[in-house]
């Protein structure tokens, strides 16, 4: 059988070690430049963590186009995952949070939307990751989606593996995909109402019965400070 030696040489070094100095990541920067040129005005933003990871953000219209470029030009043949993010702050404030009985004074109900490292301005952001198994370069692709029940092109023609991921996103976030072969619920019963991963989906059990939260243990002298999570199972 084949051996690991046949592998291409450009494997990145241990990222954690190289994180100390400020290094310029040639590969990723080149990649970002290349894809920005290809996409033109549809390319919005990018973020590179040197030697570790790269994010790009494209417009909703160029979503499928991006996949094609990534697949064909950059040989990102490995489909990793596809998901979405709901940036809207939970309308329930901290009620749903585990920390409800452990509020520090600075924690307050947030009202403003706040986006991740590549920014954004819409409620939903689509997030996908593809990978090139040869050069071992992975890229996170994001796109802002318009509206409360957005619709976007499907990736299945390029990555057949996106099929189930898109179904999952559909049922979890209510984002539908154009031209998807089988747009039905994946996990939940068809009659399930609501989209659980939206921030405004309430966990009813929690409302009925408050979460015991972190049991704030007084530290014994000399005790390690890592045993604060024992309360998960006893309900």
């Amino acid at each position: 059988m084949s051996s690991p030696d046949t592998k291409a040489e450009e494997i990145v070094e241990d990222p954690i070690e190289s994180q100390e100095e400020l290094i310029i990541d040639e590969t990723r920067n080149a990649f970002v430049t290349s894809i920005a040129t290809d996409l033109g005005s549809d390319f919005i933003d990018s973020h590179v963590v040197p030697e570790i990871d790269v994010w790009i953000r494209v417009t909703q219209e160029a979503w499928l186009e991006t996949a094609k470029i990534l697949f064909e030009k950059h040989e990102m043949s490995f489909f990793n995952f596809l998901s979405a993010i709901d940036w809207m702050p939970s309308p329930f404030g901290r009620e749903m949070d585990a920390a409800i009985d452990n509020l520090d004074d600075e924690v307050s109900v947030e009202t403003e939307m706040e986006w991740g490292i590549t920014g954004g301005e819409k409620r939903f952001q689509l997030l996908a990751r593809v990978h090139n198994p040869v050069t071992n370069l992975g890229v996170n692709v994001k796109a802002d989606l318009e509206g409360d029940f957005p619709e976007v092109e499907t990736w299945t023609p390029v990555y057949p593996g996106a099929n189930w991921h898109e179904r999952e996103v559909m049922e979890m976030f209510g984002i539908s995909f154009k031209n998807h072969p089988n747009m039905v619920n994946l996990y939940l019963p068809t009659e399930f109402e609501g989209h659980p991963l939206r921030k405004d989906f309430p966990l009813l059990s929690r409302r009925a019965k408050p979460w015991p939260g972190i049991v704030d243990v007084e530290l014994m002298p000399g005790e390690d400070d890592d045993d604060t999570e024992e309360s998960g199972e006893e309900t």
Partner: protein
Amino acid sequence: MGLVENGKLPGPLTKLLNISRKYSLWVYQWGLACCAIEMGAAFASPRYDVMRLGVIPFPASPRQADLVVISGTVTDKMAPAVRRLYEQMPEPKYVISMGSCANCGGPYWDSYSVTKGVDQIIPVDVYVPGCPPRPEALLEGIVLLQERIASEDMTDRWNRDPIVVT
């Protein structure tokens, strides 16, 4: 006719029948979640070897099973199938609820898709706590069930009100 049912059997015979039920518990081979592996360990691992106790893990169809171990999380999507599994087993049948999830929802007590306890849909004879319970705990549960079967009054069992799930 069901002589067992109307309790017209002489005592020693009832005892005999109870004992034979006790030592011949065919258990349905089906696991739900994490606990299924511990159940599998109890069934298949030479260290635990549940067959010693006369629990025979042969049947793959509920039609031949006497005992079902609900081992793991029951989700709302799964619940009708679990219910049907129970329905399709022939009487007399026993249920062991294994693990926190099957008992009460366990770590998923606040999930939107998990049934909080299998006893909401089917009657349970023995609860085995743990997340997951060790195989020894399941063995303990089976032994408890066997003790219960050995001294069971079938007439009482048959004439008990059926558990209604609306």
